[in-house]
């Protein structure tokens, strides 16, 4: 039995279709991260699970019980808000025990639950304080503690770390993952930060414009994005996209031509609905590109000028002038191509280099954005 199940969930606001027939099954004990650009509906989806937003049609089932019409307090969920949403007039202990108090639990039970949560989150010293007297990280812990004391079936997190500074965010990320292992509860986590998604999730749900684009484990989504949106969304720096044209299509593969590149012959392509002359997109991850010496045997090669060099310590990210390639949808600005080198590079800005990639690392996306290249093995170390 799955822990949370969404069946054809539809949500409209006035003149705006926020969730479009969302189907989703989340298993017991799973850590699912919902991620997507702002306005994709991820927070709305979380709020519909919480019951803070009603849905126009569909069904929400938690632990086998249809809770579609139930109040948030009756659904067996707890939620951690981005703003923490701690009751400012209550002490830390009162904040954490409030849910049980509203459920009319005996005081001894409330105290025990609060104490246990405080122990887990190292908040014993703060129990008598008000939220105002706490640091951002401590407030976040209290918000999590308030969720823990209710011992819910499902934890819901709405961008809980986005108000913390970078160092604290990394620390809390590790702590939250640890907490998930310790409690073993189902957790649904919304974020726009793909690092959080990649590092914490058992499964990632990628949302775009109110629709689920793809569901899968982080590495699976990274290696095998279902479409150009997922390919572009996961990975930093982003995947490079090259506008191209299918020259010839047959059962054995596709021949693709792109301005500035030698013709590419890609095998194992899903050619359904694809015909010669169609506009396609070639995708190549920054780490799939390499600097090529003259005469090297690697495949498609183009030369270009280095515009910016970012030294990351071990890695180097190079932004090079993409012309004459036609790039689209890249976050380094149109007209740039991104290379991530697995070493410190001494390349200087203004230098000309030859970049190339192996055809096996390239992705091909059809006119509708669907991935056409065959499955790639999930990265292993």
């Amino acid at each position, binding site marked *: 039995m799955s822990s949370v199940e969404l069946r054809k969930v539809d949500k409209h606001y006035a003149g705006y279709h926020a969730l479009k027939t969302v189907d989703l099954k989340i298993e017991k004990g799973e850590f699912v991260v919902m991620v997507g650009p702002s306005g994709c509906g991820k927070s709305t989806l979380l709020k519909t699970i919480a019951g803070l937003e009603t849905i126009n049609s569909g069904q929400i089932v938690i632990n086998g019980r249809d809770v579609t019409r139930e109040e948030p307090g009756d659904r067996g969920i707890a939620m951690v808000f981005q703003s923490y949403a701690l*009751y400012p007039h209550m002490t830390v202990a009162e904040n954490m025990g409030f849910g049980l108090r509203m459920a009319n639990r005996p005081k001894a039970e409330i105290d025990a639950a609060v104490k246990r949560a405080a122990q887990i989150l190292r908040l014993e010293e703060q129990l008598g304080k008000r939220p105002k007297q706490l640091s951002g990280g401590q407030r976040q812990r209290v918000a999590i503690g308030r969720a823990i004391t209710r011992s819910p079936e499902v934890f819901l997190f709405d961008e809980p770390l986005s108000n913390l500074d970078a160092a604290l965010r990394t620390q809390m990320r590790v702590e939250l993952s640890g907490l998930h292992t310790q409690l073993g509860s189902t957790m649904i986590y919304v974020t726009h930060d793909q690092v959080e998604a990649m590092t914490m999730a058992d499964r990632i749900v990628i949302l775009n414009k109110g629709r689920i684009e793809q569901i899968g484990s982080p590495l699976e989504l990274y290696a095998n994005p279902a479409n150009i949106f997922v390919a572009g969304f996961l990975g930093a720096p982003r995947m490079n996209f090259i506008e191209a044209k299918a020259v010839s299509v047959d059962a054995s593969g596709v021949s693709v031509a792109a301005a500035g590149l030698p013709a590419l012959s890609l095998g194992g392509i899903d050619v359904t609905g694809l015909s010669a002359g169609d506009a396609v997109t070639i995708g190549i991850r920054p780490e799939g590109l390499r600097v090529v010496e003259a005469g090297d045997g690697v495949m498609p090669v183009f030369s270009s000028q280095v515009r910016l060099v970012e030294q990351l310590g071990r890695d180097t990210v190079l932004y090079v002038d993409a012309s004459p390639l036609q790039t689209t949808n890249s976050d380094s600005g149109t007209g740039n191509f991104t290379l991530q080198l697995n070493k410190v590079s001494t390349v200087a800005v203004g230098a000309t280099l030859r970049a190339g990639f192996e055809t096996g690392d390239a992705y091909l996306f059809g006119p509708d954005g669907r991935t056409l290249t065959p499955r790639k093995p999930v990265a292993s170390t």
Partner: protein
Amino acid sequence: MSRLWRRNRHWVTPALFLLPGLILFGTVILAASIETVWISLHDWDGIGAKTWVGLANYIELADDPQFYVSLKNNVIWLLIFMLAPPIGLALALIVNQQIRGMRILKSLFFVPLVLATVTVGVVFGWVYDPNFGLLQLLFGAFGGTAPALLSDETFVTFAVAAAGLWPQIAFCMILFLAGLNSLNDDLIAAGRVDGARGWRMLRHVVLPQLSQVGFIAIAVTVIGALRSFDMIAVMTSGGPYGSCTVLAYQMYQESIFSYRFGYGAAIATVLFVIMIVFIAWYLNGLIKAERSNA
């Protein structure tokens, strides 16, 4: 010159901005208050020469039965006015519901605030009229006769204060409505997730967020009750036989009708001292709130 300016501008600029307000406050409030205290130590008809009498006005006041009537009535006003914050809150909670037609109701409740106090006084004067007033119509419907509230020594203060209460409730309602509009949505959501609803949501999540507004509503209502004057002037002129007068009205009467400016100033000074207790409490609360927000 420019050097002098640079060295001093850090205090000259704010001082210049504060100056108009300070001058106004200094002449209209501070100087006037001090002069009032000064006058209260004299016997003065308002035109001729002042005669120094020391504390004689205050000693006379302490023996004046009318003074105690005024004081008692001020307390009654205060107690009745204390109904305004809770009733205003209740109305705000009702009209804040998302129900069709609530906007019209909201505007209707807003009306007494738009009316001049004098108008409210006159309207209530008609309501209380024992011959053709609304009250008489109500009593008449049950076959009774309405008491002549405004000429009854026992009821008159209550009747006038009730008229003053009407706009005060509307004012409190507006304050609480503004407070309800600025509630933190996330806190309400957190309360819903925690299973708080109905009365307990109100008590534990909503009302604590309104405490600041509630404080202002109470403070403003206290001060409003103490300085009540216009309603009495319009409805009864303090009568019958001075039975519904309050300190502010008695001061006005002594000064303007009896030409006893010194005595009136002494009453004003006593009222000022009473007020200052509440104002100090109010300012203290405001400063505390400001500090806790910083």
